[in-house]
């Protein structure tokens, strides 16, 4: 069952310096219980894509066109009231900084109970029980005690667990997780990924996991979309994208991950810098850094393919029976 279907989504920011096309024609869809990794570097539009889906784009930004269908319902142009009844209920979010989710002056129990009562008519007692069970489900020891704590009394990893517990409180159908482990240490990151993965599998929620780290989504996602300068440049099943990348940017990204290279040798670096979103070249945004670029690239390539899609005039061939890049 398709939980989310995004078509030709465009979110632009109308700044004094010009129009920033942060998201410029993004398509993807997401099935129940599946995880999609949305990968890109800073400024690629991955977070804005996530924020557009949940209706959290603030001025000067605006979703200018396209469609976001959540369980068949069009969300582009939906009222703020409608979004309020969906967010925290059917659609939940997990942010990079759990302090963005948690109110520093309220105890954890107040915040969790509020999140339940905002969407459902249940007794306080019942809400409290659900809050406690929610904390237990994400592996927080002695949840009763933690419910009485303020956010600053918890460690970073613990706060992120609380944020995840709140996200799952009302059994959402869709979760948008924006770099939820970037600020955490590896052992804590592993715990958080483990919790999120298990919760999705148990509850059948679909999840968008936004990250800059390909290695994280390699172990977590079913499908991966790679974004560059506001567009999806490659999209496919995790194995296809990681083992048989076709877009030169994806190939470059995978090549610049240290573990994919032999020790002590030079890394395959992508030359140049991430592009200035105010002055994108005409045509393919990657052409200036691309080893395969030609005159054709001055036109805008369209995303093409059946299941493994790529937006490139000169994609890498699909190697037969061999892994192009694997660690």
């Amino acid at each position, binding site marked *: 069952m398709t939980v989310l279907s995004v078509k030709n989504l465009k979110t632009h920011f109308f700044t004094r310096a010009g129009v920033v096309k942060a998201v410029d024609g993004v398509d993807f869809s997401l099935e129940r219980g599946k995880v999609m990794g949305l990968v890109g570097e800073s400024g690629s539009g991955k977070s804005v894509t996530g924020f557009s889906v949940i209706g959290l784009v603030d001025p000067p930004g605006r979703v200018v066109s396209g469609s976001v269908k959540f369980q068949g319902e069009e969300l582009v142009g939906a009222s703020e009231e409608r979004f309020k009844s969906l967010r925290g209920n059917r659609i939940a979010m997990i942010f990079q900084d759990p302090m963005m989710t948690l109110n520093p002056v309220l105890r954890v129990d107040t915040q969790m109970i509020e999140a339940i009562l905002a969407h459902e008519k249940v007794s306080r007692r019942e809400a409290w029980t659900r809050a406690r069970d929610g904390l237990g489900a994400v592996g927080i020891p002695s949840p009763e005690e933690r419910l009485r704590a303020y956010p600053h009394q918890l*460690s970073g990893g*613990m706060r992120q667990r609380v944020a995840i517990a709140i996200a799952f409180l009302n059994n959402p159908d869709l979760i948008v997780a924006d770099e939820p482990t970037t600020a955490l*240490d590896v*052992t804590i990151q592993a715990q958080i990924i483990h919790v999120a993965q298990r919760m999705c599998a148990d509850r059948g929620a679909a999840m968008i996991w936004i990250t800059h780290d390909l290695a994280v989504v390699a172990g977590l996602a079913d499908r991966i979309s790679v974004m560059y300068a506001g567009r999806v440049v490659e999209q496919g099943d995790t194995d296809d994208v990681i083992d048989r990348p076709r877009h030169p940017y994806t190939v470059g*990204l995978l090549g*610049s991950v*240290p573990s*994919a290279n032999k020790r002590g040798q030079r890394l395959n*670096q*992508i030359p140049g810098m991430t592009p200035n979103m105010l002055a994108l070249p005409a045509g393919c945004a990657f052409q200036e850094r691309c080893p395969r670029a030609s005159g054709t690239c001055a036109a805008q390539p369209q995303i093409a393919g059946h299941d493994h899609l790529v937006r490139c005039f000169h994609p890498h061939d699909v190697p037969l029976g061999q892994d192009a890049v694997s660690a």
Partner: protein
Amino acid sequence: MTAPILEVKGVSKRFVKRLDLAGKIAARLGSDLREEVVHAVDTVDLTIGQGEVVGLVGESGCGKSTLGRVIAGIHSATEGQVFFEGRDVASLSGADRRAATLAVQMIFQDPFASLNPRMRVEQIIGEAPLVHGLCTRSTQSAYVDDIMRKVGLDPTLKKRYPHQFSGGQRQRIGIARALAVKPRFLVCDEAIAALDVSIQAQVLNLFMDLREEFDLTYLFISHDLSVVEHIADRVVIMYLGRVVESAPTEELFARPKHPYTQALLSEVPRLDQRKRNFTPVEGEIPSPLDPPKGCHFHPRCRYAMEACSVDRPLLADQGARRVACHLPEGAPAV
């Protein structure tokens, strides 16, 4: 190993939060307020050979940055000594002291915070060599141009301010500033952590090129094991202020012996690991204000025995490797 360029012997660094007047009065009156002591670095020994790249790995709060700062001379050690080319840096004075501290330079994590926003690039890079007599006012400009070219920056941009550069370029400015005083030893504290993946590779390559060109020795501090695996000859793992394992890179990654190293290695996300169901190490890093007794890792360790909660395991030599664990053979291979 070649002759050591830098040796750290029994170095500890403690940060004490002193009581203010109200606190002192409260303590006198019988309150349980005490001075808070953080053992950031706890009797660490480390030897780094000439030309070696040593990776220092650990999670936040393990004291890796503090150790780096002690080595770079930014913090003084509470206990222990730092030897540079066989001489105790703290005991030197005058010109010798200056030479020893100049020879060890540091590159910081945040290229936004580590550059003075009100100085032009030429001042940032050119100030120190002028002060230390490595160039004169008349040769300063050419000197700066030369260094900028070496780190891959266009010298025509030297009149600009830091905010006019991207993150990767700013990190290059930081590297140029460190190189300008002709150091022998660089402490890179999470030097690429704040950069995008594609830019990380560029800066890592630059580090390797510079190593060859200037015969540099690196202490590469990072939480990112894949980066360290790539660049380091030897890896040192720290946990809560102590070194728990150190070994040549290949040996360490092939067969980690300390349970903490094993946990760390198995939990690094890798491209070749797909949808996996693993059981991560339990618990969180304890507060360095109140570290567990004995082995710091024992509350989270699945092999913990009675001795682990009582005695501190000492670093024991096992060939080129050193492990601090009560298990004689280290943790079983997984």
